[in-house]
């Protein structure tokens, strides 16, 4: 199985942990994995991305334009930013909840998430929009957007992995006291 996945969002949203969970799950299945992510100054509220590539015959952890099978967007604007990387028939999972940059609050330009989501739905036929506001409320924690989005990707059949694969990785990578919450987020269905 060869798969190219991009996770994107704003620094602090938990994209890195999500990409680690995907990578660890693939590795547990003996699939070679390469990945790359943003580390450093951009983590302070800037645009961040992770590239995850699985399969044989890979040299670079970076994904080229039009090569991603799946984009998991933690933020509507960031999903639009990464859209050029999606394959023509690729899948996208996107959170509906915008993160306003400080600059937008200052200049009162306040960008509109609806415009981003409309644009995405006009371009991506295999699009799943996750109502993050509601999901986080239902699950009962503002910190598990990453597991909610991974769950949506699982149910869309976009990861090539099973819920059990991901849960096993959660058990290995996340402290035990958070397991129940993370499983609830992963299994959450609206």
């Amino acid at each position, binding site marked *: 199985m060869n798969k190219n996945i991009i996770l994107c969002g*704003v*620094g*602090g949203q938990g994209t890195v942990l999500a990409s680690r969970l995907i*990578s*660890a799950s693939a*590795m547990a299945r003996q699939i*070679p*994995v*390469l*990945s*790359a*992510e943003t*580390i*450093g*100054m*951009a*983590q*302070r*509220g*800037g*645009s961040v991305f992770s590239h995850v590539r699985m399969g044989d*015959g*890979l*040299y*670079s*952890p*970076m*994904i*080229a*334009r039009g*090569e991603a099978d799946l984009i998991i967007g933690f933020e509507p*604007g960031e999903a*639009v*930013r990464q*859209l*050029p990387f999606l394959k023509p028939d690729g899948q996208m999972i996107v959170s509906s909840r915008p993160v*306003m*940059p*400080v*600059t*937008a*609050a*200052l200049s*009162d330009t*306040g*960008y*509109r998430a609806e*415009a*981003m989501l409309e*644009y995405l739905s006009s371009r991506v036929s295999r699009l799943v929009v996750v109502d993050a506001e509601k999901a986080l409320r239902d699950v009962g924690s*503002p*910190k598990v957007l990453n597991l909610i989005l991974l769950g949506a990707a699982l149910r869309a059949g976009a990861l090539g992995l099973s819920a059990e694969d991901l849960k096993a990785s959660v058990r290995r990578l996340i402290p035990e006291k958070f397991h129940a919450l993370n499983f609830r987020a992963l299994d959450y269905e609206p």
Partner: protein
Amino acid sequence: MHDEFVMGNEAIALGALAAGVNLVCGYPGTPSTEVLETVAKRRGESTYVEWSVNEKVAMELAGGAAYAGARALVTMKQMGLNVASDPLMCLEYIGVKGGLVVLVADDPGPISSQTEQDTRSFAAFSRVPLLDPSSAEEAYRMVQEAFELSEKYQTPVFLRPTTRVSHGYASIRVKDPEEYVVHQAEGFVKDSGRWVIFPRLSFANHRKIEERNALLRDVFSDFPLNRTEPEDPSLAGLRKGVATGGFSWTYVMEARKNLGALRTLKVSTPFPFPEKLAVSFLSGLDEVLCVEELDPYIERELVYVCGKYGLKTRILGKTTGHMPLSGENSRDSVQAALAAFMGLPVPAVPADNPPPLPVRPPVLCAGCPHRASFYAVKQAMKGRKTVFCGDIGCYTLGNAMPLDMVDTCLCMGAGLGIAQSLNHLEKDRSCFAFVGDSTFFASALPGVVNAVYNQAEFTLIVLDNSTTAMTGHQPHPGTGRTMMGSVVEKVSIENILRGIGVSAVETVDPLNHALAVETVRKTADLPGVKAVIFRSPCVALFRSPARVSVDPAACVGCKKCIREIGCPALSVRDGKAVVDSAQCNGCTLCMQLCPAGAIRKEEAR
């Protein structure tokens, strides 16, 4: 052996441990930091590890260890190599006994650095051999080879990953601890003819260095990590080749899958350059495209080889306008450049017109004490003729609107020199230098001594958040923790400043806004060199459960909170301020400046 999914920097650390490294030291800097952190996590009892106070000190420690026959690794980013260059330049002339590997991570882009300097060029300048890995797997192997080379040829050896190698992850095969080399240091043997640098010794050793490097050019021509990948027979008629190295090699190899394969030279040892391998690569080629980041290093070497051996191959790259002069390469940019070089159609970038995307410059975190410190100084000095000299760290982000509190930023510690100089020229200007706690210890002390001795007049602001925040929270002398796991006496910033003779040293909590403003106002007007230490811990390290919220009935919609401090947790909805409770840390700065008293502290949850 076992498989592990590791970051490039972790691979380097594991490789060094597998080589039996005895001492590891360095100073944090993106993208190099995780090497030392991984050593600290995974080391056995025989490996000593420390965050040194700066790169120069680290280089000197590592050199001393290598004098004693120990294997030593010193880690830094490319900017740090500038700080460490004095001891390194001399170490190359003195030579080493134990293996000394100098890990310098370069940052094409640049993504989080001031310059796009190229350590390959520094290697040629300093005459220190350099290995240039393309992946985590290669980095793991190369760090072990680097120790061998260092001991065999008695020279420090550079290992130079770039950001994408350092921060890329791969599943790789690594040794189990039982398989690690056990390296015993012999101990320092007195020999002043060897370890004391004098002009006569430098003259003699300079010749030996050049002779050794000439030998290494040949040795590296047979080095298995330098190699030529063959071309597709169908493309041989083009008589074209590609020369590459480092992370760009991965881009070239991916593009070969899509475009067809040209003969490809992979340079893993840019210095000394594998000349003979290059000559055999060039034979029969009319044109070669050089695909590399930062300096046109391979390109210049190939031009030199062509001149030296009378070859007619045209060498294309950055200097001929075929590749960009600055910035990172990418899968797409390399594929497009190769397609053009091969005479293939270059795929057009589809014209897309998405709605305007939000711009996201990095910002100080919600609740960051630096925001409160900058705001206090801004309020205290309102209407005065000032200059605010910034420095390197999270607090460089104080330059963003609406704070707009960083007028200069050059390199670590430079704000002190700039601030005192500006006051010498303009006596009526109130000059400030802002420096973080880790930067204070790393590079501000000579600036303070200079100011006191030379009768300068400026205010030093120390932003003490009790950690090295930007690079991911490393300890430093003010934290009282070491990488060996000990809790030790903290080095006091106040005592240092008083000891040097700074006239007034005030410490204040920046989150107490009124007191902070008053303290700055009083202190800044004193004559000579004076200091305010803003002390409040980094919110990313010590997360507070406190939150504030806006009472919409009380909010008058003046937006003062938003206009004044630029906190990412604050935004406007339906004309009223709102607080994002997922980001808020309850620092209460916005609450303290709200003229309507509409922001309230919530009970801790």
